[in-house]
């Protein structure tokens, strides 16, 4: 099967403008999204996952954030677009599902109004037609009594139902890219699996490519075709799902795998320490302080991505001799 490249992100750098200096949050991130495929993005909190999503959506305020790099959607660079053009893209070809379904709806208006208002921002249709589209979408995501739901207020629905409504709103324009920023963190486990099931069903139907952000390895294992592991703003390892789980290379990914609970009586291995604060910038590998494979060169070398065929790793362990060039600055 030929993979169609839907979104291509190259050397994405995001930094927060503060007084004095810019603090890099996302560093040199590159990845591709393919049609009908899911890219899982995992990492601890504060690794730049959400910042990556928001910068793709063009939601980072320009006077507070610097976004550099190229983001191409269906072969077109969307970086230079003005606000209005980006807004038309959002919800249209580029959709996003937020973490917190309960907070994501205006408590004062009905779900139907949310739906209609969003539809009418993208399509020139009458209120009646918009309502029709909304009902269709709601029945597609297995919500009972769509008529009733349209008349209800957000507080009358459970978190799981709201998340489904949000998915319906995100998908009515048949976006080519769907960004799901931890779509199931605030839901309980059974609902979580229903939602994931619906997401993968919709992905198969619409051939949507998905960027799934999560810290739950189980979700990633179930959903993703490819996985990117983020740490300290970098993507440290990137491979297909089978490669990641069976041939884990980067020490950080290994540590992540080990801290997953399993049904044995062994004590859980915990990765000691915390991710580096974004405020401190050091040369070398950001993971060096917590790494159990650390070498004396790790904090000296400026890391780069080492391509091992099906696998891309950002770790000195996998550098061949000629690639390991000492950084000029250290």
């Amino acid at each position, binding site marked *: 099967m030929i993979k169609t490249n839907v979104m291509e992100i190259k050397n994405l750098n995001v930094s927060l403008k503060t007084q004095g200096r810019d603090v890099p949050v996302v560093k040199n991130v590159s990845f591709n999204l393919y049609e009908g495929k899911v890219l899982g993005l995992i990492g601890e909190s504060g690794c730049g996952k959400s910042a990556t999503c928001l910068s793709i*959506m063009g*939601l980072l*305020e320009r*006077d507070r954030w610097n976004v550099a790099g190229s983001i191409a959607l269906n072969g077109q660079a969307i970086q230079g677009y003005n606000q209005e053009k980006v*807004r*038309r*893209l*959002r*919800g*249209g070809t580029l*959709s*996003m599902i*937020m973490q*917190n379904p309960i*907070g*994501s*709806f*205006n*408590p*004062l*208006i*009905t779900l139907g*109004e949310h739906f209609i*208002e*969003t539809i009418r*921002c*993208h399509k020139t249709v009458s209120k009646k037609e918009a309502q029709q589209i909304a009902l269709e979408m709601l029945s597609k995501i297995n919500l009972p009594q769509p008529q009733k739901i349209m*008349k*209800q*207020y957000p507080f009358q629905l459970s978190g799981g139902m709201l998340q489904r409504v*949000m998915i319906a*709103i*995100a998908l009515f324009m048949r976006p080519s890219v769907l960004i799901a920023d931890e779509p199931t963190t605030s839901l309980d486990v059974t609902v979580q699996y229903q939602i994931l099931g619906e997401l993968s069903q919709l992905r198969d139907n619409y051939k949507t490519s998905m960027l799934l952000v999560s810290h739950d390895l189980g979700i990633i294992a179930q959903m993703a075709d490819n996985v990117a592991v983020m740490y300290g703003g970098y993507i440290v390892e990137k491979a297909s799902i089978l490669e990641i789980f069976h041939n884990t290379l980067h020490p950080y990914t290994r540590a992540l795998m080990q801290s997953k609970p399993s049904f044995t009586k062994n004590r859980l291995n915990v990765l000691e320490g915390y991710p580096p604060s974004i405020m401190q910038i050091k040369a070398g590998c950001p993971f060096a302080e917590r790494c159990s494979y650390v070498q004396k060169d790790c904090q000296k070398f400026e890391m780069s991505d080492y391509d091992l065929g099906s696998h891309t790793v950002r770790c000195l362990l996998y550098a061949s001799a000629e690639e390991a060039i000492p950084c000029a600055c250290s």
Partner: protein
Amino acid sequence: MIRLLLKQMAQRFLKRKPAVICLIFMLGVVLGGIFAPWLAPHDPTEVALKFKLLAPGGQFPLGTDDMGRCVFSRLLYGTRASLGSAFVVMIIALMIGTTIGTFSAYKGGHIDNILMRLCDIFLSFPSLVIVLVIVGVLGPGLINVMISMILVQWLWYVRIVRSLVLSITSRSFIDAAKVAGTSDRVIIWTHILPNVLPQLIVLSTIDLGSLILHFSGYSFLGLGIQPPTPEWGMMIENGRRFIRSTPELMYYPGILITLVVISLNLIGDALRDIFDGNYQ
């Protein structure tokens, strides 16, 4: 659904007896002002010196003032000037303040900064001084006092609306709307303003009271409405000269102003409790 909510709110309001009494009183005052031509027994500006300074009773329910004008009629007509102008001032100031405050908060960045610093500059002058200066330049009169009060008042509304809008903008449903590609216009009209409205209603009800006080104060100083048009503040000023012989001339408008201001405050408090209850 909305109807049910309104019904609940009305029920909760009815449980607050003082507020209900105040509301009935305010309705009475407002209706009295509107229907003054039919209710008033006399022309409020008709001078009849032979009836001057009469005690209450007979054809003059509250007696007459120093020019023989019917105090009751003057109070009724005075509602129009006092309440009516304060209301107009509040509405216009609120509209300007809401527009600029929302714009400033939503745009953020440099525009917000510049607008807020401008507000700070104006707010650093005492409002009385600004009103005095403006009226001094434009000359006394109802319209001029109203203009100067609007100029002073909208600054406060800008500040308050801005902070309210900022607190709404930080809620995640605004982000969700942006993510879904909703236009700024729709976000402001359907998501931000309806969420700000309850607080604005409470605020403006309580503010109306203080505006009436200010307005009467300016009339008392002779800046506002010019005689012979009746106005409560001016009636107090008129009665001041007869404080030893007929103090009632000051009592009636004074008591009326006090009651109106207290009523508006109590109604505003009750409204706030009701709206707060909805948000919890």
